[in-house]
């Protein structure tokens, strides 16, 4: 099982928090309490491409749905849509929001229901080879999200997660328009961080002050060797609270192939657990109070010196 021998597992944990001080058996069945007023509209953005926005959206969506919340995920990356692939729903998309706008179908028909969790829906903005009509500016998506919130009055949606496209182009402007809070995904490298800072600035200018960061693809061995910034360094540079720190994990690509978000892996993978912890914090409106670091100077056990000499 490769996930268990990964030497680079790097974890986000919380120090003094109420829910893991209780008896284990009780905490196993515990669910987080929803903070804030539902429906909560969260945009997952980054500035730089390929840092893991879509991966984060898919995993947070699946986590929240498994926790029992009614979730609708919007793939607002009209140009390079692939949230459907990560959720394994690509063969079931018949209609998208574009068809809703033009009156070819109703909004409820464009929502793709997940077979694993019937409280999880996916909405794509447009078909891959067609253009998204933005003639009404950002109203295009604010109307859409507003309609989603009132679609089922008896079972109102609790989380609307928006997977934002990379860059700060029209797609970004559209995706952030309906959001109340933002998750800024970044990798611990200077290029991604500069973009993240810029995007945080734009979000704040737009009045979205509730921004939390997910540091993705962290390698504990590199952090330990001072070759990579730690999530604490990232936090210091951006001055934003941490929602999660996700280790680099080969299981991410396998789960993409499977079309099943990593958090649903059985047995769990390190990155999956880290995403699930982030989802839990998102629900409770919480942030990380401590970051798990690999021991810098682990006391060498007697008699094992030779093994470490040979790199064992």
């Amino acid at each position: 099982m490769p996930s268990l021998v990964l030497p680079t597992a790097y974890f986000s944990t919380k120090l003094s928090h109420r829910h893991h001080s209780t008896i284990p058996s009780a905490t196993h069945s515990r669910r987080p309490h929803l903070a804030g007023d539902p429906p909560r509209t969260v945009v997952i953005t980054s500035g730089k491409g390929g840092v893991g926005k879509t991966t984060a959206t898919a995993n947070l969506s699946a986590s929240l749905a498994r926790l029992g919340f009614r979730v609708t995920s919007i793939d607002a990356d009209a140009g390079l849509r692939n949230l459907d692939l990560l959720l394994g729903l690509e063969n079931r998309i018949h209609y998208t929001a574009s068809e809703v706008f033009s009156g070819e179908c109703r909004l409820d028909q464009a929502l793709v229901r997940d077979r694993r969790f019937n409280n999880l829906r996916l909405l794509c903005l447009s078909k891959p080879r067609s253009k998204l009509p933005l003639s009404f500016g950002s109203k295009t998506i604010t109307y859409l999200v507003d309609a989603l919130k009132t679609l089922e009055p008896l079972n109102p949606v609790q989380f609307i997660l928006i997977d934002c496209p990379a860059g700060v182009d029209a797609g970004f402007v559209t995706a952030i328009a309906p959001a109340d809070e933002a998750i800024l995904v970044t990798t611990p490298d200077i290029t991604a961080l500069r973009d993240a800072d810029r995007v945080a600035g734009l979000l704040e200018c737009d009045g979205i002050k509730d921004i939390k960061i997910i540091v993705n693809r962290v390698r504990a061995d590199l952090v330990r060797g001072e070759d990579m910034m730690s999530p604490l360094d990232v936090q210091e540079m951006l001055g934003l609270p941490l929602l999660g720190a996700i280790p680099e994990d080969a299981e991410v690509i396998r789960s993409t192939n499977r079309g099943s978000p990593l958090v649903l892996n059985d047995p769990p993978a390190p990155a999956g657990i880290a995403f699930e912890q982030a989802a839990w914090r998102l629900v409770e409106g919480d942030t990380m109070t401590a970051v798990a670091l690999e021991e810098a100077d682990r006391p060498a056990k007697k008699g094992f010196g030779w093994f470490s000499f040979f790199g064992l």
Partner: protein
Amino acid sequence: MASIPTALPTKIGEASIWKSRHVWLGSQNLAWNCRRLRWHFVIRSSNGNSSDSSKNPLVPVEKNLRESCQGSFGSLKATVHVLLPVVTSVRTRFCSKFAMMVYVTFAIFIIIARKIMLKRENHVNQGSIADLVRRGQLKSNRRGIAKTSLYDNPFNNAFVKIDEENSTAQMFGKVYRLAPTTLTKEQQLTHQERRAQAYQWKRPKVFLKEGDPIPPDVDPDLVRWIPPNHPFASTSSDINEESFKNNVYQKDGVPFRVRAEHEALQKKLEALQDEPKIKELAVNLKNPEEFEEPKLQQIELNETKKADEKIDKGLKSSNEKS
């Protein structure tokens, strides 16, 4: 193969080894060893050193190899010798070939079953290309739902244990040190102010095609210009804002365009009512249930669309005829 005896006729082609190889072919290990040996000599003979084997520095190595080969072979022989009495004793005790056969078959069956089970298990968790095939991304259309884990507390489970007193966390069998975060509210605000000064931005509210005039009631600062060749966005639209809103907020009934198309079709049909062939079709289409159903399913919608297309075609051909 022929080069083997010529290379080292006596040393390698030693009768005992070759004979034994034929006799004991069942032992894969041994056969492999010997094959490696042979391979070696073929290379050597091509070097042109074959005639002078006694001076060749490689010979001792080969000898060693041969000895090791013989050694493993010898140990195998010894094992067989040890086993033989056991087998005979078993034979004498049960006195039944049949029972032996049953045991052997059973053992083979168990091995095969286990192999199959392992393969299946592997397949479920692999996330390999096979899964892409399964998902219809690469040829083939077979689809399935992956096995999913049940919910578990991510802060306290079989893989993650957090020890608050010692500020350590044990995760996936490794112990980590917990370093507390230090970000304060004041620091957060300083960063916000820094960004507010660095990036002064107003989110565009209106998207216009490049070159279009700005409408009088629009703030030029809030315009986002979309080039006409934008890869995935367009500003052209054939509906007004009111019907756009209606479309988005519509909860039941027939979608706007489907209804419009249907009505247009019906008008066409009414105009052509005199023709007997079309009459039948019109009767079918007028069936009100199909369209007044509050929750039209997608498949049904598709079907009605197809039907519409068919009728359209029928109309065209009848038009051409008349």
